[in-house]
């Protein structure tokens, strides 16, 4: 099960291993104050050999059971890794919908209390591109949240 302390530990360990990544999906929206729930956390790491190696080392330190075969597969390069069970549920998404590269997504990155996260704009973009039923269902509220944040920003300026 995912708990708030897992997020802090995940951030610490990924940072210690110099993994370049950002939180994406609903977890990223929740970090930014979006009032919703999720059962797992999605991260988007940069897909390159060095970052993949660092990620594997970080996952092992976190307690995920990464055997040599799994490690080899991750290092070869995957688009999607789904981790369930202990220590917590997490999806590692190397190619989220809506973005062609990590550099492109990086333009949409925000940092919330030290957590690198895809901005609400970016999340809306991925959900639109993914087009699953659950994505389409969450869009109206995300768009409203974005509108609220924009309005709040304008009010702060004046």
């Amino acid at each position, binding site marked *: 099960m995912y708990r708030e302390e897992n997020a802090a530990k995940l951030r610490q360990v990924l940072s210690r291993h110099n993994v370049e990544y950002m939180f994406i999906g609903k977890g990223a929206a929740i970090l930014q*104050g979006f009032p919703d729930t999720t059962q797992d956390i999605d991260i988007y790491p940069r897909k390159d050999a060095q970052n993949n190696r660092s990620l594997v080392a970080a996952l092992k330190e976190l307690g*995920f059971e990464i055997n040599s075969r799994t490690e080899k597969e991750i290092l070869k390069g*995957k*688009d999607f*890794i789904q981790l369930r069970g202990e220590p917590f*549920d997490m999806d590692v998404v190397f*190619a989220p919908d809506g973005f062609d590269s990590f550099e492109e997504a990086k333009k949409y990155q925000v940092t919330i209390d030290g957590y690198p996260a895809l901005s609400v704009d970016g999340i809306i973009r991925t959900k639109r591109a993914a087009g699953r039923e*659950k994505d389409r269902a969450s869009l109206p*509220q995300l768009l*409203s949240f974005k509108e609220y944040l924009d309005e709040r920003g304008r009010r702060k300026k004046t």
Partner: protein
Amino acid sequence: MNAAEERKREWADFEAALKRPVAERLRRGCIHTFKPGLDEGPGIRMWNRMEEYRLWCEKNLPRWLGYHRVTEGEWERRIEAAMKGTRPGRGLSKRRHIALKRPVKDYRREHHVAPKDYRRDIM
């Protein structure tokens, strides 16, 4: 409740949520619910391409979990169909329909791949 009132209430929720510290946002937001198909089987699954993952979800997960893709047009048609089922004066907005009506309607309308146990659970 009209659209303006609903928006006002929603924005009040957003304002309250933004006042919460990040740890509190995570505590409230991370809730485990059992997802058939996803929470069963191996602890680690991997896909070379996103398209393979999407197809796996569509083949192996019950439709009501929401992992099936749908075009924007089809989605709009579903919402319209759900709206028609509303009694006048109920005051449910399109958004509420999505949240409250769609999964059950979809379940009844479509044959999905959920095993019997899950069908019983959602009925």
